[in-house]
């Protein structure tokens, strides 16, 4: 086979791949795809809130250094911020999806607020309150994640 033929085949394959990718990303989001995004965001927020609880408990026991604590809260807040951004850029395709989003958004906001409170706490009482709040948010997010996973199993993979 001549070099020009090989180049044409390679270019056609590349063009096909590019067209397929363009078609894929320009598709409007399906409800199942949106539900998956909501599940991922809820799971990220849950992980961050639970990490916050673990870190704050160790802080109370004087088991952590200041530098580590600052980094751990920063990492958790950054993870939630990334999840928030992901949710903000996804468009809810129908009312049911929008309702799902409306349940999740306050919990994500609570997570950020509770993590910030824990990071800023200067005494044991404030830190204790932050742990309680983070624990509550974590449990609510855990319930939501479980519910979304059950829905996903019932409806099948998207």
């Amino acid at each position, binding site marked *: 086979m001549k070099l020009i033929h090989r180049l044409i085949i390679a270019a056609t394959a590349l063009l096909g791949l590019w067209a397929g990718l363009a078609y894929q990303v320009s598709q409007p989001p399906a409800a199942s795809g949106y539900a998956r995004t909501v599940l*991922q965001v809820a*799971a990220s927020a*849950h*992980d961050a809130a*639970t*990490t916050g609880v*673990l*870190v704050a408990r*160790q802080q109370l*026991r*004087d*088991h*952590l*250094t*200041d*530098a*580590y604590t*600052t*980094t*751990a809260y*920063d*990492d*958790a807040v950054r*993870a939630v911020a990334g999840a928030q951004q992901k949710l903000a850029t996804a468009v809810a395709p129908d009312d049911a999806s929008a309702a799902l989003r409306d349940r999740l958004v306050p919990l994500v906001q609570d997570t950020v607020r509770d993590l910030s409170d824990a990071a800023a706490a200067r005494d044991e009482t404030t830190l204790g309150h932050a742990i309680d709040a983070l624990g509550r948010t974590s449990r609510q997010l*855990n319930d939501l*994640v*479980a519910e979304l*996973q059950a829905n996903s199993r019932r409806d099948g*993979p998207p």
Partner: protein
Amino acid sequence: MKRVLAIALGVLTAIGGFVDIGDIVANAESGARFGLSHAWVPLVGVIGICAYAEMSGRVSAVSGRPVFDLVRERLGPRVALANLAGSLLVTVLTLGAEIGGVGLALQLATSVGYLLWVPVVGVVLWVVLWRAKFSLLENLFGLTGLALVVFVIAFLHLHSDTGQLWRQATHPGPPVGEDWGTYWFFAVALFASAMTPYEVFFFSSGGVEERWSSKDLLTSRVNVFVGFPLGGLLAFALMATAATVFHPLQMSVDSLSQVALPAAVAFGKLGLAAAILGFFAATFGAAMETGLSSAYTVAQYFGWAWGKFRRPNGAARFHTVLMVSILVGVAVLMTTIDPIQLTEYTLVFSAVALPLTYLPILVVANDSGYLGRRVNGRLANGFGLLYLVIVLAAAIAAIPLMIVTRMGGG
């Protein structure tokens, strides 16, 4: 007595030097999400790396030449180029991930953002690789990496639910909320983290750096068969502690600060300090190994003078490749890609490149022209072929699993 001490030092170095950012990330993520249900994977990976590292060490000790040098001579420049391209890409990306890991470890110790540390780490790495002796580098960071033993002790101290962990380990499969695709994606990543290509190139070139001969076969084998499995135990301890602390809370781990937490839970600030020191030593040591491996493979392919045993001006092109590799690693991180994410990608690409690395080693280890009567026996060939099938399966599955599971996101 001196020889026994040298062997003991080699083993300790091999233990501490086994773990890198890929092991840290893959084991902790797997432990948090899947408990110990991936416990079989590090075991399979460690046996595989032992089989091929033994071959590489034997080839270097008997022939006095590194494996990559022989691959080019034995299989020709085309096959060696495919090997070089695959392993170099993965090794340079791994170097970037390791430098990022050093930055993250320093961030844990100082709370200064890791991106500010990355250029500093790049410069220090280059200066250290330029100035310091090979044996000093290997021993210092290998021994300091032993600080990760804190995770083994922490696991024993955390009063884990051993019955539950045993059940997870003996019943492989995804827990509730996870699927088989994600389970296998993590299995491939864990396997790749244990069998990273740079390890064999570094081991084999390191043997030449230390002027191994046939007399050093025992040292090489003890390092491999004692040091590597014990090093694998350190990596497994990261999985076990994550399975103990995070898995019951049904959470995943995506930062180095989370990975260190079990050590703090068990031993407070002292445990935390040991964990951070261990992360620093493991990632900095691996950054040196990956930097050197990049330069070794390129220099050996083109037949340039190479090695730390030469003065830098006697191996100028080798040191240039080393410097460029570090610059590329730093540049990748300066795109602000998350080092943990970079590590995850590196593991996937590493899995794809595995057959390109290990098939040529098996061929060379069977060539009596280089090894005389020290060619592979039946057992070595049996393991070699078996693992070739496994790495081929991992290589084929890696990319589809990455796409289907969205990098393990499910």
